[in-house]
């Protein structure tokens, strides 16, 4: 081992290398210093200050932040009907988007992983990935075009005497589902693809019909991946406000409330911002217990 050789008479680079090799702790701290300063001080520090400011208040005349500790903002948050409605609506939107994504993603992923010819499978995965790379705003814009008055949705539904949903809450849910769908398809596809075919055969040999095989073999093996995908579909929907602004009509979600409070009442915006953060951190912790996060 080079470390055991006498250090004298060698180049500085070699000496430094030897020092790092003998002291793993030093090596580790050199690796971690810069990233921890960035994420720990800059990012977590900013977040920390933001959450502390949720306990400050705002002078109603000057819009200046008053740095006096109080829980008024949170009290207002929980007692004002409008806030409660918006929070519940946001949770409902995030859950419906997650559910819709799972329902649409499953047959697609089952097809690409199990039904399609093996030669076609990689190509089909690319076909799912490509829209993932298309710009967020362009995808929302596409739905704005579809749902606008006289747009594609209206044109398609016209022969049935119907019209498209226009801009509003359903439009926001549809668009968000479209945006985050690939995040749900990919993990499910991976799980289905990695499932050994022997398990399915064994289940059939033991007399299970396809429906029962699906319930007792396929579903339990795929659920952690659905959980992993749901982390994205849920948290991305919960925090979104741009899509809602573009296709949501007058719909308000938590993100919009935070956005509209930033200028006039930063402490209130901060308090509102803690709601999705708390929900998502709880969600992440719950998902970590299922082991879903390690498959991200």
């Amino acid at each position: 081992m080079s470390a055991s050789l006498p250090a004298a008479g060698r180049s500085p680079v070699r000496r430094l290398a030897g020092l790092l090799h003998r002291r793993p702790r030093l090596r580790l701290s050199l690796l971690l210093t810069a990233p921890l300063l960035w994420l720990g001080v800059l990012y977590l520090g900013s977040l920390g200050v933001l959450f502390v400011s949720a306990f400050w208040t705002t002078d109603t005349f000057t819009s200046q932040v008053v740095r006096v500790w109080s829980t008024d903002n949170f009290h207002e948050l929980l007692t004002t009907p409008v806030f409660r409605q918006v929070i519940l609506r946001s949770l409902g939107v995030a859950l419906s988007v997650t559910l819709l994504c799972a329902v649409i993603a499953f047959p697609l992923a089952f097809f690409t992983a199990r039904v399609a010819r093996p030669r076609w499978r990689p190509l089909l995965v690319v076909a799912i990935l490509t829209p993932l790379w298309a710009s967020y705003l362009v995808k929302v814009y596409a739905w704005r075009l579809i749902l606008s008055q006289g747009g594609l949705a209206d044109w398609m539904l016209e022969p049935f005497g119907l019209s498209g949903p226009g801009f509003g809450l359903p439009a926001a849910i549809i668009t968000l589902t479209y945006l985050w769908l690939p995040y749900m398809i990919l993990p499910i596809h991976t799980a289905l693809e990695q499932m050994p075919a022997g398990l399915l055969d064994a289940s059939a040999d033991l007399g299970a019909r396809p429906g029962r095989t699906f319930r007792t073999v396929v579903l339990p093996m795929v659920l952690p991946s659905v959980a992993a995908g749901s982390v994205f579909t849920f948290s991305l929907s919960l925090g979104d406000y741009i899509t809602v602004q573009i296709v949501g009509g007058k719909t308000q979600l938590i993100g919009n409330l935070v956005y509209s409070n930033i200028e006039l009442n930063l402490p209130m915006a901060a308090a509102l911002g803690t709601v999705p953060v708390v929900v998502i951190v709880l969600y992440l912790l719950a998902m970590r217990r299922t082991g879903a996060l390690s498959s991200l």
Partner: protein
Amino acid sequence: MQLSRSARIALRIAAGLGFAVIYVPLALVLVNSFNPDRSASWPPPGWTVHWWSVAWENEGARNAVWVSVKAGLGATAVALVLGTLIAFAVARHRFFGRGTVSFVVVLPIALPGIVTGIALNSAFSTVLKPLGVGLGLFTVVVGHATFCIVVVFNNVVARLRRTSGSYEEAAMDLGAHTFRAFVDVTFPMVRSALFAGGLLAFALSFDEIVVTTFTAGAGVETLPIWIFNNMTRPQQAPVVNVVAAVLVLLSVIPIYLAQRLSSDTATESRI
């Protein structure tokens, strides 16, 4: 599982519908860029390439592309350095708080962009402004890098987990010192993971709008901000159509590159 004939057909139809849902909106954006009319009503009354030349000459859109490229390159560079450092620490060392470190890396992308945005915004305006550094391209790069670290980290850490440290040990037994072993053995192993991570980081930064809104100064307009500001202006609609169509076409490039890299990086998740 032996699927019945009808189940197969049903799955085929469902998958076909799913693919239609994925592609129709993107195709519509492409078709609409040739729409001579300013409204989005369907079907378009005719075809024209006029707006493509108008968009090409559009000063605002061109500047915005340039700002986005600069911000993306800056954020990618920072993310590559920091993400790789954490990946090596987490994959090659055992230490107290290792799980917490991986959790904190994911946090900036898991939390809503608006929360990250206002947190950074208030931090910048309370700490940097007194030092004479206003919001601008620099703060955009800092904001983007924060959530880009995770994609580099995930790609590199996945690669490192698959390759044990024994190659480095073998190199050292043969007399290579730590840096030599890194340059000759470790780096070639993680190179394609770094490239894939960098590509993802750039794409993520190029597409970001929320954090940008809160970290960009008044004069700094990235492409997503430009699109957002012009989307609802009827006068600008044709140019926005063309820019959106170009972005749909360009999105094929990174997927092609990612696919050309080793197979393991292509299907790895986006974060």
